[in-house]
């Protein structure tokens, strides 16, 4: 983690996302999108870390990322996802969902499709609606699923003006994040510590399964699914805890790992190397969790940053579960399995709101108005 580049961008960054690389190509990530929040005028921006042909003296590329283009966004950018190579979906605090088009020819962004008032509150007395922030969005071409503070779930299609499916009052509290489990099933997390699975094939407004943290109902802020083992799910909570769930069994997390000191805003499995997990938090830290079991020399690799070893604290004993492939995240033998944790940012700053990983590249954005990029995650 020697090469981590910071750039101050004069706006608080709420989301950072790599543009996906075309399937099967050998390209590495070179473009990412960011969204800002809490500014007078918020923006969705595209940045390039690509080499502009300027090699520096050491033969490496210039580390600075350059702004390609940006566009105004009404309201805070609450979530951001690439729909495909050219399209980005942004969730707004004004309750609208916007699909932006990127035109690579002249490097501009334009609004492709917009669903205004996708999320709204209905007042008890009147018929008028108040907009409610849309808190999360997830895409799986051609579908877009959004969740909001109004506890509503919307299913959009890129080419449809109206929502294809809406589940009103899906949740009595705020929905914080959403992800696909396997189409057409989605996972949502809410502010009372519940993980819900919804199946769009089922009619009605009830989730097909509810899993929850026991006891103190700590809000969950983020969720990600293991890229290969779809039953393995990671969530991050308000107390900074990382929970690993096996959605096939039980209604409680398989393990709870003590992590950050404040809200965990995002958690991501590495898409192609899922023994690695990344989390970021309000406390200004960004962590790399390495659960790969065959890395005897790990500590020497991660000489930079504070290294510490955490043990799994299994809260449900599932030793008798027979699995052909036991995920390193689900194993419950505390003596054998260790997770190496590395802190990736040199010094604590304000909240790290978002991160994304793709291949050897990582990008994160902070409230201190800086974007950090590294291209040597595993070197």
């Amino acid at each position: 983690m020697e090469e981590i580049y910071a750039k101050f961008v004069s706006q608080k960054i709420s989301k950072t996302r790599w543009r996906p690389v075309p399937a099967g190509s050998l390209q590495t990530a070179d473009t990412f999108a960011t969204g800002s929040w809490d500014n007078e005028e918020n923006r969705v921006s595209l940045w390039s870390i690509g080499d502009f042909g300027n090699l520096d003296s050491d033969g490496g590329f210039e580390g600075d990322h350059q702004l390609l283009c940006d566009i105004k966004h009404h309201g805070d950018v609450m979530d951001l996802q690439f729909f495909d190579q050219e399209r980005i979906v942004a969730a707004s605090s004004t309750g609208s969902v916007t699909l932006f088009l990127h035109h690579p020819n002249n490097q501009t962004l334009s609004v492709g499709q917009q669903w205004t008032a996708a999320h709204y509150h209905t007042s008890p007395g009147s018929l008028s609606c108040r907009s409610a922030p849309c808190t999360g969005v997830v895409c799986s071409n051609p579908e877009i699923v959004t969740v909001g503070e109004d506890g509503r779930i919307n299913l959009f299609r890129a080419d449809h003006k109206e929502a294809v499916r809406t589940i009103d009052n899906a949740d009595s509290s705020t929905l914080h994040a959403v992800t696909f489990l396997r189409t057409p099933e989605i996972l949502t997390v809410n502010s009372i510590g519940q993980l819900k699975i919804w199946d769009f094939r089922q009619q009605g407004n009830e989730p097909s399964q509810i899993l929850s943290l026991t006891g103190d109902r700590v809000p969950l802020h983020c969720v990600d699914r293991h890229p290969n083992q779809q039953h393995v799910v990671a969530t991050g909570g308000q107390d900074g805890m990382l929970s690993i769930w096996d959605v096939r069994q039980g209604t409680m997390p398989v393990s709870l790992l003590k992590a950050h000191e404040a809200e965990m805003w995002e958690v991501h499995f590495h898409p192609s190397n899922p023994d690695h997990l990344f989390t970021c938090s309000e406390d200004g830290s960004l962590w790399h969790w390495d659960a790969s079991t065959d890395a005897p020399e790990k500590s020497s690799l991660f000489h930079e940053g504070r290294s510490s070893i955490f043990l799994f604290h299994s809260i449900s004993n599932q030793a008798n579960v027979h699995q052909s492939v036991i995920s390193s995240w689900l194993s419950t033998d505390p003596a054998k399995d260790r997770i190496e944790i590395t802190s990736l940012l040199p010094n604590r700053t304000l909240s790290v709101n978002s991160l994304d990983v793709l291949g050897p590249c990582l990008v994160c954005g902070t409230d201190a108005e800086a974007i950090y990029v590294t291209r040597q995650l595993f070197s």
Partner: protein
Amino acid sequence: MAERRGPCGIGGFGPAGSTGGARAGSSLATGAEPEARARSFGGPANSRWLRLGAMEELDGEPTVTLIPGVNSSKKQMCFDWGPGEMLVCETSFNKKEKSETVPGCPVIYIIRKDVDVYSQILRKLFNESHGIFVGLQRIEEELTGKSRKAQLVRVSKNYRSVIRACMEEMHQVAIAAKDPACSRQFSSQVSILSAMELIWNLCEILFIEVAPAGPLLLHLLDWVRLHVCEVDNLLADVLGSENPRKHESFWKLVTILVLQGRLDEARQMLSKEADSSPTSAGMCRILGDLMRTMPVLSPGTTQTLTELELKWQHWHEECERHLQDGTFASSPHLESLCKIMLGDEAALLEQKELLNNWYHFLVTRLLYSHPTVKPIDLHFYAQSSLDLFLGGESSPEPLDNILMAAFEFDIHQVIKECSIALSNWWFVAHLTDLLDHCKLLQSHNLYFGSNMREFLLLEYASGLFAHHRPSRLSSSELCSLWQLGVDYFDYCPELGRVSLELHIERIPLSTEQKALKVLRICEQRQMTEQVRSICKILAMKAVRNNRLGSALSWSIRAKDAAFATLVSDRFLRDYCERGCFSDLDLIDNLGPAMMLSDRLTFLGKYREFHRLYGEKRFVDAASLLLSLMTSQIAPRSFWMTLLTDALPLLEQKQVIFSAEQTYELMRCLEDLTSGRPVHGEPDAQRLQDDDIETTKVEMLRLALARNLARAIIKEGSLEGS
């Protein structure tokens, strides 16, 4: 965002002398004619500080700021004083009159102290310096002596490099700007930043580095070289030309190099001259030798100051002799260079153009006449240099006063002057904090508030918070730096917490995520009152939006029993109206939070009764229902509903309520009916309601009596068997 027209009031009380109060700077006018004058009470004023004339005495009359479009004779004005800015709005309280006098829409003027500082680029300055600031506060107190000093110097250099980075970016923008007015504005900001860096650098040398005689001059030379940097462009220009010697600026360049004490480079230039002109080759060689042999203090050697002074004296005499002998008489250029190297004041003043400013003159003069100047003597030379350089033609500008105060080692004067001249608090707050860490400000306490460091930090942090406020009103680059402000408040031991408490409650909570961030700040600092109030705001919002589940969550988080009761009542009311519960996912999972308020406990238990009933666990359901009433958890008003809920249980085939329980139920019913207040004038509606009620009671009595009979029989027969 600079003013469009009219002069702009500047000055007034400096922060060191005022008890706070809003500050005014340029006015933000949008149309309308200048009609009246409003008085403003200013602190650090507007940015045109380099062009400021002589500063008046600090405690003079407050300056007048012109606000266009205000007619004071008609008393149309109202003020709103914000913590960081003054809001002036033109209003007319008489609507009729307004429509006559001011056709069209009313206009609002915002007078802001530091309008042009709030640019995109300066946000980087604020954010980056925030990191340095926090790092500085964490510097171990144990560090003493050299390592501590080295750390503080490094911090100071970090601050300066951030200023420089901003300056460079601003410069690029100024060059790229197409609109000349815009470009001018950026350029003026570049000059402000450059002045900030200049002052900071000098303070670093004098107060933080505390360079002793000898090294002091070397530092001052570096300082001048860093800030008079046109020479580098000139050097490249001359060396890049085909024949440097024939370049029109050749001698100008050599002179500047000598003035800046860059003698090695000057010597190289001279050798070029010597090579091409045999007539002056000899003279050039002699002058070059003089340059080479000038004794300088080289750091790291054990040479004492006395030795240096002795050597220097010899060298000086040698120069003197050459001049006396007329060695350079045939070349006026070389002769004037020699005079400069002798520290000849008249010769130096001839180069006024090249020296640019008096402090350059001062440093050059010291270099060639008092190379081992002691810090304590600096102010004497500084004052005379300033007087000589200005020569009574012009009076010193604010920047001159600040630098002079620094040379006099009057830190408080430096901070005071900077506060007046600079357009925002960033500079003074950070500099003062750093100097305080050098333990230079301990003795100075203000007669109000706390010490000066804290006062300035509070002002700066308040500005960061105030930033947020009138976002709708102003078109300027308002932003959201409140998160930075929090850390500054944290490091103000006396009033920081109180200020944070006042400010944090005023942050608009547009989304829950933002609210969570604010809550986290409060919770980390055990600001329970603020946590409660924020949760309450969010709970209220949720209730208004008909999101009872959310509302309940927030009141549980705030441990706000009263509000939890209110929300529970709403749930119960909705139940009574609709016959079913909403938000079951929350109510079923209340857990220990249920104990927050009696009503919430009742809600949870009542819902549990429904669940038991639904699961056909009638006996458990019945005893729970009864206990809700007997334990007084259920509100009286709800008893009738509970008794009605008991009806189907009473009518079940098997006996569910025991005789004992039935007696209890009957007592509850009698309590309820006997305690009924007598109404006054009964109207038709009430009569009808009473009618229904009476029927209900009759039915309940009947059902209870029948159940009692069955229960007695059953219990009797069980006993008998």
